[in-house]
């Protein structure tokens, strides 16, 4: 390693898509052993910058130096050679291969001097090497033999880090690494980042979780509209300051005021169970109430939510809707009973990417638009209404949904379900992967739906969100309800301790 | 070991060539009516030897390239001849057909099964020259004589006898009919529907061109493939007529394609005006001649081919007498003048007791 001042130096990098400047004249440095936070709203240019560093996009102007040497990164192999490793938000592992195979993918150790595709692999050596990286460097125990698809998300992420380290990466770029992680797993990741820092690796940490960024990073770079608007030590910043830098003004308020729920229960659940998912769950949901559900991954919170919709329905117990006992055994049952469900995975479970905003918006309520022949005019009018009402930034119902930002896509999906005029709205991670302003909008929309008398259940792994948005929070552990907290008096710590252990 | 094998081969060759091929050639006419002596070629000596098998029923495998109108007619001849020879208690017929024309691998499987089962004789139709040679060799070495029918043959020394007709004679017969009827009629334009590229198309066209090329006024203006099938015969004829609306004669190397061509002519009210010369004398073609839609077709003696298969088996496997290497008959041309002489019973299997 040469002894230049900076591990990475970016000088005046710019990128255009057509006539749009996605990035213009970005300059910044990254010291060895430094953790740099990179924040900005969606569309601010974070992804573009990361894609340039990882070789997915080629830059149009500017220079990049690594260890004082100018490098030309045009494709992913260039980035790897330059010692840049990237850990993506959407994991890029091969689910059917085991940890060792994943860590060594593309750089397998093989027998003999002249490696080619057909010589035998040195499986033992690779296994030892993988074990060393995981156990000694990262300090974790991971089953090396099972397909990574069956491992927990946090473990898969660690395998990605191991893969980057194995390819001699000195600069690690982490894109929303904690987005889908539970608290304990997040803490493990923070520890790993600190270890990497001690070992002289540099980290670029990209996240929407500003409190976390401030806690983990040494320095924070804020991007807005493709330009660098701040480059400050983390110690000099707080969350509100960062937000105002990001949006170029100040945000009035993240969470809306809670209105008080009505007296009548819209949904009453009595001892419902589903084998291997959840057991003996009972609760009441009132009109206008927002009920949060917290719990670790695998605690049964998502399975419970989906069961109420009719997807993987409960096998025993009683469900009462507005006081009437109802059987919900399929999605059709759920929909016929005016229940709506917004799934967590926007891309794989939510949007029809090839199609327009309007198409996506009316997908679950087409029967409202004409009998045999669809009344496309009525459909378009209704869509235009909702686009305005929900504040969806688009060119109209005909625009392809793939061109919208995550936040606006989420609003379309929310509109899709509001259009069905549901009594009960089931929301799974409603703000995952969307930016601050969109989050505030989504919270506002949820609150006003509650105000309109709907019962709402929100499953989320973000405790701040649950506390800020919900009236009560139901905590689950290993398929059972271990507590129902009043949001006004609860704390993140209280939720966490309930989620981890029964009290 | 090897030397003695060679010696016996040589001896067999001499006997085969000198004795049956020449000395008794004249007698074959009595066994195989209409048999063409000039088509006979000398045996190679590698064939199975004549044998007298006494087991009854004799198991004979019949393996065409596919089951269609033509092979059904061959099969009718086979069955009638078996009836004459004593019925199923004398010869038990095993019939297998591959799922499509080009499924040679299906034929391989059937041949292997029959060799393992030790059938007494195999009659097989080849799709290509030289196809199945290893299997024919295996059967021969296992003592099972192999007879070919309706096959293009090249360099296969192991089969006992090739039964059928000379494909190029078929083409010659078509061309000869055109010559006989059109040679004095000034310039005559001919369009040809070929089959799929392959030996059948090549040999028929060879005979056809051989005869036709001697006459300057008879011109082939279009020649296109129609895959042996009716649907393509229809579309390709339509398309050729667009390019050459002034065609006088439509020749098809198979009646199926000719019948498709007839549909195209009918749609343009040209049936009877453009002369259709078919090939095979299928029942429908025969009917079409009677009403004037077809001008002529060539009968290649399918039923006789079937009869000759069983006659050869009888001679070779039951009586232990040799048979000629080629048992060919002459194709016969039918048109409006002689169609009345054709016996419609030739299309079907006529069971013996109803005769």
């Amino acid at each position, binding site marked *: 390693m040469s002894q230049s001042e900076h591990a990475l130096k970016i000088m005046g990098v710019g990128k255009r898509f057509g006539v*749009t400047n996605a990035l213009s004249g970005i300059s910044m440095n990254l010291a060895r052993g430094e953790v740099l936070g990179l924040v900005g709203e969606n569309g601010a240019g974070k992804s573009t910058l990361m894609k340039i560093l990882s070789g997915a996009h080629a830059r149009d102007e500017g220079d990049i130096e690594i260890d004082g040497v100018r490098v030309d990164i045009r494709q992913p192999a260039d980035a790897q050679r330059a010692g840049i490793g990237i850990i993506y938000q959407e994991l890029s592992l091969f689910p059917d291969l085991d940890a060792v195979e994943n860590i060594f993918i593309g750089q397998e150790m093989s027998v003999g001097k002249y490696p080619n595709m057909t010589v035998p692999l040195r499986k033992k050596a690779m296994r030892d090497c993988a074990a060393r990286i995981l156990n000694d460097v990262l300090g974790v125990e991971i089953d090396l033999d099972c397909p990574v698809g069956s491992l927990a998300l946090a473990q898969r992420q660690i395998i990605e880090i191991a893969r980057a380290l194995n390819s001699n990466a000195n600069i690690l770029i982490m894109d929303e690494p904690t987005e889908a992680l539970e608290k304990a797993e997040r803490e493990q990741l923070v520890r790993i980042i600190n270890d990497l820092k001690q070992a002289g690796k540099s980290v670029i940490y990209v996240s929407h979780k500003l409190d976390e960024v401030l806690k983990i990073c040494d320095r924070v770079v804020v991007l807005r509209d493709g330009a660098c608007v701040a480059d400050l030590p983390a110690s000099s910043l707080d969350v509100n300051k960062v937000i105002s830098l990001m949006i170029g003004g100040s945000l009035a308020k993240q969470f809306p005021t809670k209105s008080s729920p009505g007296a009548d229960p819209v949904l009453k659940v009595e001892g419902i169970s589903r084998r291997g998912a959840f057991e003996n769950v009972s609760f009441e949901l009132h009109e206008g109430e927002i009920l949060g559900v917290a719990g670790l991954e695998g605690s049964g919170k998502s399975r419970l939510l989906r069961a109420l919709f009719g997807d993987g329905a409960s096998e025993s117990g009683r469900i009462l809707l507005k006081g009437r006992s109802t059987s919900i055994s399929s999605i059709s049952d759920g929909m016929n009973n005016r229940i709506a469900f917004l799934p967590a995975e926007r891309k794989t479970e939510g949007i029809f*990417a090839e199609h327009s905003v309007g198409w996506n918006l009316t997908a679950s309520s087409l029967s409202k638009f004409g009998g045999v022949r669809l009344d496309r005019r009525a459909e378009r009018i209704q869509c235009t209404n909702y686009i305005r009402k929900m504040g969806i930034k688009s060119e109209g119902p*005909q625009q392809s949904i793939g061109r919208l930002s995550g936040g606006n896509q989420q609003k379309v999906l929310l509109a899709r379900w509001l259009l069905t005029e549901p009594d009960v709205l089931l929301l799974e991670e409603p703000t995952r992967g969307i930016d601050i302003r969109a989050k505030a909008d989504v919270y506002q929309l949820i609150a006003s739906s509650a105000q309109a008398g709907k019962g709402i259940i929100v499953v989320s792994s973000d405790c701040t969100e649950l506390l800020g948005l919900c009236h009560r929070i139901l905590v689950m552990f290993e398929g059972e309800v271990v507590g129902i907290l009043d949001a006004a008096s609860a704390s993140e710590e209280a939720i966490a301790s309930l989620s981890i252990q029964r009290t | 070991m090897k030397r003695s094998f060679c010696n016996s081969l040589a001896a067999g060759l001499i006997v085969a060539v000198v004795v049956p091929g020449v000395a008794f050639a004249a007698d074959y006419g009595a066994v195989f009516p209409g048999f063409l002596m000039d088509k006979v070629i000398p045996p190679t000596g590698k064939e199975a030897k004549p044998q007298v098998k006494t087991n009854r029923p004799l198991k004979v495998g019949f393996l065409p390239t596919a089951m*269609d109108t033509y092979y059904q007619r061959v099969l009718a001849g086979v069955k009638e001849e078996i009836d004459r020879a004593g019925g199923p208690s004398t010869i038990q017929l095993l019939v297998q057909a591959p799922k499509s024309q080009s499924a040679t691998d299906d034929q391989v499987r059937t041949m292997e099964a029959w060799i393992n089962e030790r059938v007494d004789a195999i009659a097989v139709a080849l799709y290509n020259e030289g196809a199945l040679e290893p299997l024919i060799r295996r059967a021969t070495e296992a003592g099972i004589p192999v007879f070919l029918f309706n096959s293009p043959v090249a360099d296969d020394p192991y089969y006992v006898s090739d039964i059928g007709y000379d494909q190029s004679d078929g083409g010659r017969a078509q061309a000869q009919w055109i010559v006989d009827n059109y040679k004095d009629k000034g310039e005559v334009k001919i369009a040809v529907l070929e089959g799929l590229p392959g030996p059948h198309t090549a040999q028929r066209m060879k005979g056809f061109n051989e005869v036709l090329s001697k006459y300057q006024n008879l011109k082939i203006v279009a020649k296109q493939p129609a895959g042996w099938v009716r649907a393509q015969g229809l579309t390709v004829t339509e398309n050729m007529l667009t390019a050459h609306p002034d065609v006088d004669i439509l020749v098809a190397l198979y009646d199926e394609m000719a019948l498709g061509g007839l549909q195209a002519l009918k749609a343009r009210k040209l049936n009877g005006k453009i002369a259709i010369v078919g090939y095979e004398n299928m029942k*429908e073609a025969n009917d079409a001649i009677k009403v004037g839609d077809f001008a002529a077709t060539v009968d290649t003696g399918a039923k006789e081919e079937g009869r000759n298969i069983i006659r050869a088996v009888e001679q070779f496997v039951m009586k232990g007498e040799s048979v000629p290497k080629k048992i060919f008959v002459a194709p016969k041309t039918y048109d409006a003048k002689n169609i009345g002489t054709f016996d419609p019973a030739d299309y079907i299997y006529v069971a013996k007791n109803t005769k």
Partner: protein
Amino acid sequence: MSTQALDTKTPVSKFKLSGGASGIVIALIVIIVALGVASPRFLSVGNLTDITRQAVFVAIIAFGATLVIAMRGIDLSVGSTLAFTGLIAADLMNRGFNPYLSVGASLAVGTLIGIVNGVLVAKVKIADFIVTMAMMVITRGLIMVYTEGIPLTGLSNPSFQVFGQGFVGFVPMPVLVTILTFAAVYFLLYQTRLGRYTLSIGSNPEAARLVGIRIDHIKIAVYALTGFLAALSGVLLTSRLEAAMPEAGEGYELDVIAAVVMGGTSLAGGRASLLGTAAGAVLMAVVRNGLNILNVNTFWHQVVIGAIILLAVCADKFGGRSRDT
């Protein structure tokens, strides 16, 4: 991501769901012009009538297959279904049944074959490729069992002949039937919930399930439609030839898929261009017609057809479609 910034710069696409068919249309026009130059007779009314009449058999089936493929499915059984149903119509008529009744029965059997395909795919959850391949082999086998390889002929009843050979004004009956079929399928695909749901399933099956679409019902309906259309094509072909051929429709499954894909419908599902499919089917007939008219050497035919398929797909990929995903 900078998509938001990009949006304002790109022109608004029309609220049109028919997908991009411009590539294939350009390819078709280029080839037609080229053939028109090469042979003056190519552009004659008679020849163009012939071409459309030749294209209909593949086109009708391809309309159904467009929905199947847009749903991320595949149907290999169409060629055999065509032959099987054609045979049923012919056989019933030969047994003295009324032609309309025979045709009705044939269409019913085609629909039934489609339903069986659909149930095996959607309910029993066997891979569509396997189900329809097995169906292709089984029906073809049954045809051989019944016909022993011999065509069924003698279908000279005029009220049956009219399906394949008749004219309405200047328009050949089979072409008219195809146009009506196109209109009906177009309506189904772009104007009804069935079409919307079909495309939704192809676009994102999991999302489709979670918006309450009964995926199994839609799949069965779409396979049934395709079976029905294969039977319709079978009736037209049988009437055109006045015979039911045991080998009819062999290889149609590939022609059909080629027509659909050339037309711009993605094998990955979610998008469908029915107009493109029609253009694809016509293109194949145009090319075969051109080869015959120009008297191209037999051995080159398959090479040319394969090359045209590739060219058409390339034209669609690079020429017409705007990328808005």
